[in-house]
């Protein structure tokens, strides 16, 4: 309107008054409002919970794998006492025989003192092991990847030392494998549930926050904005909100694991720490854990942005639907 006639400017600024300065252009979507802040808060909480669950499940899986690995790394040769048996020689023979098999790494004879310590919870202190017919143990470390031939070893042992019994821990290993798998499965299920809850919460919270901005979508649409332009304006706005929220939640979760790991490291060998380690494993997240937190943040950001885009496009579609179907007056602006 450069050729607008000046004679109609009845309240034009007086001469020599300095030109008014225009403030820096504000974003089309208001940067902060109650629904936007609430959405950011919801995203932060959900990101925190999701990252916490992710870290916890990673720990449980690692602990389960470690149980399995520790127990399947060793086999035990048990030698029952016998009047005609030189126990110490039999222990050495059993160890040496076991170590001749490919797939074994190391053999340790559990000495008398250690055996007494093992029995201490049941038989009390000051136990004289020679007075009791207590079986003795040889612990053989094996290569988990290529274990020895247990049946051949069992046969060779029984031929050389009839009192020897090979326990390859298969029963325990199988049980632990089943338990570890169940634990990991439950953990993964919990993770899926928390992520599903996060997805739904973020989607509905975004839609809720957007519903307060419907009038902006309508005005933009009616001043000739293309749907893609309107969608991109809202996308930018909600991307920023989701990044702030998910960063806050992810950072808090990472901080939680860092503090827990630090506490565990400082209180090592104390009963509390040992109990926590036995139950939960170590609180160290590792690179994968932090990568998971970053991935969670990215997922939330993408989710929020896409929800904003689809909701805006749907709003515009509804406005256009009214156009082609006048009976849908519920969506109609008062034009």
């Amino acid at each position, binding site marked *: *309107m450069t050729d607008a006639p000046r004679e*109609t400017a009845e309240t034009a600024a007086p001469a020599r008054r300095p030109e008014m300065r*225009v*403030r820096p252009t504000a974003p089309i979507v208001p940067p902060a409002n109650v629904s936007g802040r609430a959405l950011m808060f919801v995203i932060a909480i959900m990101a925190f919970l999701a990252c916490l669950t992710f870290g916890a499940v990673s720990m449980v899986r690692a602990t389960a794998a470690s149980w399995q690995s520790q127990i399947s790394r060793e086999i035990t040769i048990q030698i029952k006492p016998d009047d005609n048996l030189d126990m110490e020689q039999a222990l050495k023979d059993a160890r040496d025989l076991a170590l001749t098999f490919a797939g074994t790494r190391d053999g340790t004879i559990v000495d008398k003192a250690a055996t007494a310590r093992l029995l201490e919870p049941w038989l009390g202190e000051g136990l004289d092991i020679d007075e009791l017919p207590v079986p003795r143990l040889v612990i053989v470390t094996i290569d988990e990847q290529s274990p020895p031939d247990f049946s051949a070893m069992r046969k060779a042992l029984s031929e050389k030392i009839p009192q020897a019994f090979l326990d390859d821990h298969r029963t325990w290993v199988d049980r632990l494998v089943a338990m570890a798998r169940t634990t990991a499965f439950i953990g993964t299920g919990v993770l899926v549930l928390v992520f599903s809850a996060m997805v739904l919460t973020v989607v509905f919270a975004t839609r809720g926050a957007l519903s307060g901005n419907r009038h902006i979508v309508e005005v*933009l649409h*009616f001043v000739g*904005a293309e749907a893609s332009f309107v969608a991109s304006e809202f996308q930018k706005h909600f991307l920023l909100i989701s990044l702030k929220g998910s960063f806050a939640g992810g950072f808090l979760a990472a901080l939680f694991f860092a503090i827990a790991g630090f506490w565990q490291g400082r209180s090592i060998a104390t009963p509390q720490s040992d109990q926590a380690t036995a139950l939960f494993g170590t609180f160290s997240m590792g690179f994968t854990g932090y990568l998971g937190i970053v991935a969670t943040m990215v997922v939330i950001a993408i989710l929020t942005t896409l929800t904003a885009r689809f909701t805006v496009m749907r709003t515009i579609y509804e406005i256009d639907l009214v156009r082609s179907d006048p009976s849908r007056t519920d969506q109609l*602006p008062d034009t």
Partner: protein
Amino acid sequence: MRRRPGYCHGGGRALLEPGWPLIHFENVGLRYGMGPEILRDLTFDIPRRSFQFLTGPSGAGKTTLLRLLFLSLQPTRGIIRTFDREISTIPRDELPMLRRRIGIVFQDFRLLDHLTTYENVALPLRVRGKEEASYRADVLELLKWVGLGERINVLPPVLSGGEKQRAAIARALIDRPELLLADEPTGNVDPPMARRLLSLFLELNRLGTAVVIATHDLSLMDQVEARRMILSQGRLDIYD
């Protein structure tokens, strides 16, 4: 005035214009759902550079007719040609381009409360992807023209009803539309302000924009010798 019930080829000046009218209605009818027809057998043109009032009693269908003119509704029957295109054949994604050729002043202004007067008026240019530097002078000049030169950094909640009305009008005019639709543009202002706004519309029309003003205000219509479109019980009578 000469009455032409139901049909008009256009105002005197527009008859001299070559080519097609801006908008052409032919036997247009509209009903909401299964209800009665709100508009019946409307056949008329909105010629280029024409100026007309659209009036009638409350509930006669003025706002609905404006919606049809603004492409925010499709008729249940009949043909509407806008800018020489039949609107039922226009794909959705082409509507924004056509709406850019039409300025509309909503009855409730529809200003965005978080944007200043300047930003609200500049909004149509902004959504067209123009750089702020390219339109700043034009927006400031238009704001002075409508008497809001001192209110450029004010947010709408602080503006008076008349100021909001003028800001809404300025927003509708900023991209020099070929057609301006105004729904009760003087409904919230006192008579002197109404006269100022009317002179503004006349000036705009003089510069080449066709203007349709929906109003109840008889005194406003009496100030100008212009075409009158009177809606009554869904039918349209046109007085040239």
